[in-house]
């Protein structure tokens, strides 16, 4: 009589479908997954510890390197938390620019998601197409901030510099062309038999379980929970924009795919509305104790130079207290919890990473399915290890 035994398989940390340095110990009965033990921490850089030794402005570049596919969302969450502590009013133009760049970031992140997710399941064309479109957003990033990935663009109180002259034209080009590209992806995938067979009924997690595991973002909406922090706890003036929050029904990979695709279309809609709101005006709050002075003043007057030097070297004191600010990042709820004891450096900065919490549900989602389906589940969770390990 044939006897069976459980086979243990090591997947990662160097494995193309784990999207970074994720290591999974998978226990298999034949090809059916019995147990998954994720091992993380290969990319741990101690961002939370480092930020306790840096001034508030010096931490912004560290946040770029969390979810490196969506740097501006991370910048935004962090500076909003600091601004909440300082009670700073940000001017309208900076708010609108933040919304535009934040939605561009969502597009950028979701384009990488659809590219890699499709490639993992075997659809290579989508990968090439999506990276072509992502390049457009990267160019905009470079134009605006000077860097393609580590943008470091937002500042406490506003933006680091004025938007480039052709900013609106570049955004308009993206807004005009992207919906057509989304149609192409849908044409390639939505009714594709292989895609449907690989995604429908894969990685099912019910709404109750998703809440129990703390899943956020498109993965939670795919399970039918109507939640979006941009609408429910608005920041940056999101309450003034008209957009839909897509919600799935069947809690599977296919629904999460559709939720993200609709989200990309909604992002384009938000950018269109924001471009109309973008009016000339100041880009920094009127808070000289916190904001850097304009460059002309630094180069041409001794007062400006001293002002710049003081903020760059000592930073600025932040009132004693604690705040939590959650933003709807492309991957889910990204939260920053800052405890200040009144000094120029935080006592504690805690990052609530969406990918970390979402990943903890992987065993629940994959148990009982086949090993190749695990690859689809990692793709649909849309994790970034820079954020998980921090």
């Amino acid at each position: 009589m044939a006897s069976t035994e459980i086979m243990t398989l090591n997947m990662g940390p160097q494995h193309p479908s784990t999207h970074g340095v994720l290591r999974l110990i998978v226990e298999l009965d034949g090809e059916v997954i019995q147990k998954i033990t994720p091992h993380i921490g290969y990319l741990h850089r101690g961002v939370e510890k480092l930020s306790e030794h840096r001034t508030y402005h010096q931490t912004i570049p560290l946040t770029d390197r969390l979810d490196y596919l969506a740097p501006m969302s991370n910048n935004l969450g962090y500076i909003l938390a600091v601004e909440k502590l300082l009670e700073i009013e940000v001017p309208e133009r900076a708010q609108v620019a933040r919304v535009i760049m934040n939605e561009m970031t969502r597009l950028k992140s979701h384009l990488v998601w659809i590219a890699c997710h499709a490639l993992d399941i075997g659809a290579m064309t989508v990968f090439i197409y999506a990276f072509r479109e992502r390049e457009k957003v990267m160019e905009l990033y470079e134009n605006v901030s000077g860097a393609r990935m580590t943008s470091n663009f937002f500042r406490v109180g506003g933006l680091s510099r004025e938007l480039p002259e052709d900013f609106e034209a570049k955004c308009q080009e993206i807004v005009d062309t992207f919906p057509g590209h989304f149609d192409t992806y849908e044409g390639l995938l939505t009714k594709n038999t292989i895609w449907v067979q690989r995604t429908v009924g894969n990685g099912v997690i019910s709404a109750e379980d998703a809440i129990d595991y703390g899943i956020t973002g498109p993965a939670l909406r795919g399970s039918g929970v109507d939640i979006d922090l941009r609408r429910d706890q608005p920041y940056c003036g999101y309450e003034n924009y008209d957009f839909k929050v897509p919600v799935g029904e069947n809690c599977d990979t296919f629904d999460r795919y559709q939720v993200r695709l609709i989200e990309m279309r909604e992002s384009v809609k938000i950018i269109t509305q924001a471009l109309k709101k973008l009016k000339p005006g100041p880009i920094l709050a009127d808070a000289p104790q916190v904001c850097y002075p304009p460059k002309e003043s630094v180069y041409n007057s001794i007062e400006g130079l001293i002002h710049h030097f003081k903020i760059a070297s000592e930073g600025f004191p932040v009132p004693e207290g604690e705040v939590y600010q959650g933003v709807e990042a492309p991957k889910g709820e990204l939260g920053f919890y800052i405890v200040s004891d009144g000094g120029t450096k935080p006592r504690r900065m805690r990052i609530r990473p969406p990918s970390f919490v979402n990943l903890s549900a992987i065993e629940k989602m994959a148990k009982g399915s086949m090993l190749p389906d695990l690859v689809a589940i990692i793709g649909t969770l849309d994790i970034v290890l820079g954020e998980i390990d921090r």
Partner: protein
Amino acid sequence: MAENNRAVVKLQERFADSVLESKEFRGETTVVVKKEKILEVLKCLKQDLGYNFLTDVTAVDYLGQEPRFMVVYHLYSIPNKERIRIKAPVTESDCTIDSACALWKTADWLEREVYDLMGIRFNNHPNMVRILMTDDWVGHPLRKDYPLQGPDREPYKGRLS
């Protein structure tokens, strides 16, 4: 004010001798409770007051103060779209608190991270092992007395001094 918050009123009623402090700052409500009652408080918030989503579990090190640690829970109510922060003080000599894993599975990894980086043990946790650092790591890096550049190096003195 925090006194007008329905959840705060209810908690003060039900756990009169366990609620140490409640305050509102920048529109956020914080309630500090005794750590012995933390599980009951969280259970009450989850089942009776609609705070059904555990967003985050973390800890803060107030080195030099007594009690030294503060375990911080961020809860979110999906139906009411409200947040509340629950804190529980933990002393250095008895560095333990009850695990919330029985209420939310989210707590599993988040509490492991607190244990790993801050060194607070969670009672009745199903798998209380390190998560980000390696299994054989000595010390808890996020504690204030853990040197920034690691245990065997000169202490970091800042970039300008």
